């Protein structure tokens, strides 16, 4: 559980900075931030499941 929370915090902080820095309008920033956050989480979980099945 702790690992998941740390990953979530990491994704949240990175997505915040990426969203604010990359786009101009508040709406675009919010949407881009959400998109980056979702990408971090989905890719992180996908990699975790892939590595779970690798025995070494």
């Amino acid at each position, binding site marked *: 559980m*702790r*690992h998941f929370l*740390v990953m979530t*915090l*990491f994704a949240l*902080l*990175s997505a*915040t*900075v*990426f969203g*604010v*820095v990359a786009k*101009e309008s508040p709406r675009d920033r919010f949407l881009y931030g959400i998109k980056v956050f979702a990408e971090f989480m989905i890719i992180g979980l996908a990699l975790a499941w892939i590595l779970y099945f690798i025995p070494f």
Partner: protein
Amino acid sequence: MQKEKLKEKTPEETPSRAWAMGAAGWLLPGAGHLLQGHWGRALILGGAVWICFVCGLMMGGHMFSVGGEQQGISALLQIPPMIANLGSGLLYLASWFFDVGFADDPQAAARATYEYGTTFLLIAGLLNYLVMLDAFDISAGRKA
């Protein structure tokens, strides 16, 4: 006609104020935006970097520096992560001065959150480089 074309192509000079804002942003995360009156941006961007750095330290993360016991290739391998850590500006320098997060302690390395902490500290520096560039661009008039 040709002179006009040449004039159009000449790149705009970057105002010295932009360099100062960039330097302030690097030195103290969020300060570059704060000095320009972008309070909200300073709070969000600077806050994200500060939280990332403090969480990294609380997790027992390790920061990198050149000039330790390492020699040869091992010393060279310390340079890229040190550049990432250095992005935190004064936070990195203060930690180095007070020797917080620099000790090669096997007990600290054994903590479950050690690797997470180290990653958070690296990311705090890298994110601050982005924040610094944002402050620079705003001051140079390249961004609203």
